[in-house]
């Protein structure tokens, strides 16, 4: 039941925390991307089952990167991670076609969300 996940976040600390949570939940982190551009490239090479995408990244932000990935692969499963408010982004999440939104400060919620997808 473990999924292959691509973790996207510009903070190395955050990537470590997400990776630990996902690994403890039995999933495999196949790649880590530091930026939106890297995320799109790695997605094409690795073809993961899921992508966790940070929204506030310097350069290309998570929303733009998610749009690009979904253009390449309409079946891509992207979950947004943010320390920002969910209400503000629930509209964007639906419009872009991402599968969900998790608050970065409750990382363990990602496991429930992944299992539901």
């Amino acid at each position, binding site marked *: 039941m473990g999924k292959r996940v691509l973790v996207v976040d*510009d*903070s*190395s*600390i*955050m990537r470590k925390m997400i990776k630990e949570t996902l690994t403890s939940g039995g999933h495999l982190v196949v790649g880590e991307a530091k930026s939106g551009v890297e995320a799109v490239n790695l997605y094409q090479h690795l073809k993961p089952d899921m992508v966790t995408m940070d*929204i*506030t990244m*310097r350069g290309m*932000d998570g929303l733009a990167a998610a749009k690009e990935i979904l253009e390449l692969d309409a079946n891509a499963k992207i979950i947004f991670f943010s*320390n*920002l*408010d969910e209400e*503000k982004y629930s509209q964007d999440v639906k419009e872009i076609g991402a599968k969900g939104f998790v608050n*970065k*400060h409750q990382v363990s919620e990602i496991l429930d969300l992944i299992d539901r997808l």
Partner: protein
Amino acid sequence: MLKLSRKKRSITNLHPYSLKSLVNTFFLSAILGIICLSGVLSFYATSHILTDSQTERKILENSEWESTTKIILISRSRIVGLTLAILAWLCLAWFSFNRLVIVPLSQMVVTTEKIGHGQLNQTINVKAPFEIRKLSESINDLSVNIQEVLLFVWNQTETVLRYLENEQSQYKNEKGLSEVDVVKKDLLELQKMVSKFAFYDVHLDKKRVFDGFDKDTLSS
């Protein structure tokens, strides 16, 4: 309570010269030195041969091959030619070093100083050789991590403060504060420190963390 470390700290020697002026002095002195050296070699050393350009031409055209004067005149012009080539190379090196090292470093200094002052919204972006670019990327990574930790602290303290909002304790200490009041006070102090930083794409708000574009819902 935190304990003070008893290790001695070494005092870093800060040299007063700037890298820019050091490099400029180096290249300028090298250029002037080469000019002086070639001037000595080509003209001073052969200054006993005083000729005007007409006579020089005559000597070069008509003298026999073994003529010492002719040899010296030819050597003189070759030294001048070589010097010009070396000078051209030095100017190119000076210009390249300036553009590739000095300018990006100066930009890094300015931006890193701002980051050091808590403006975590600043990002260093320089076109430079690998080492300088790697250095600036690492500084950006540090800044990003600090931002994440601080936002985490903010959010978690907000959550706890919300829960404590309605908590009242009957017990009051000698200062008239309950345990709950002390916890609230400490958390608010912690939040005060977090609010001293400026964040990338994020504004702090007492109730929740907003993104940089959410101006209409920002509270004072």
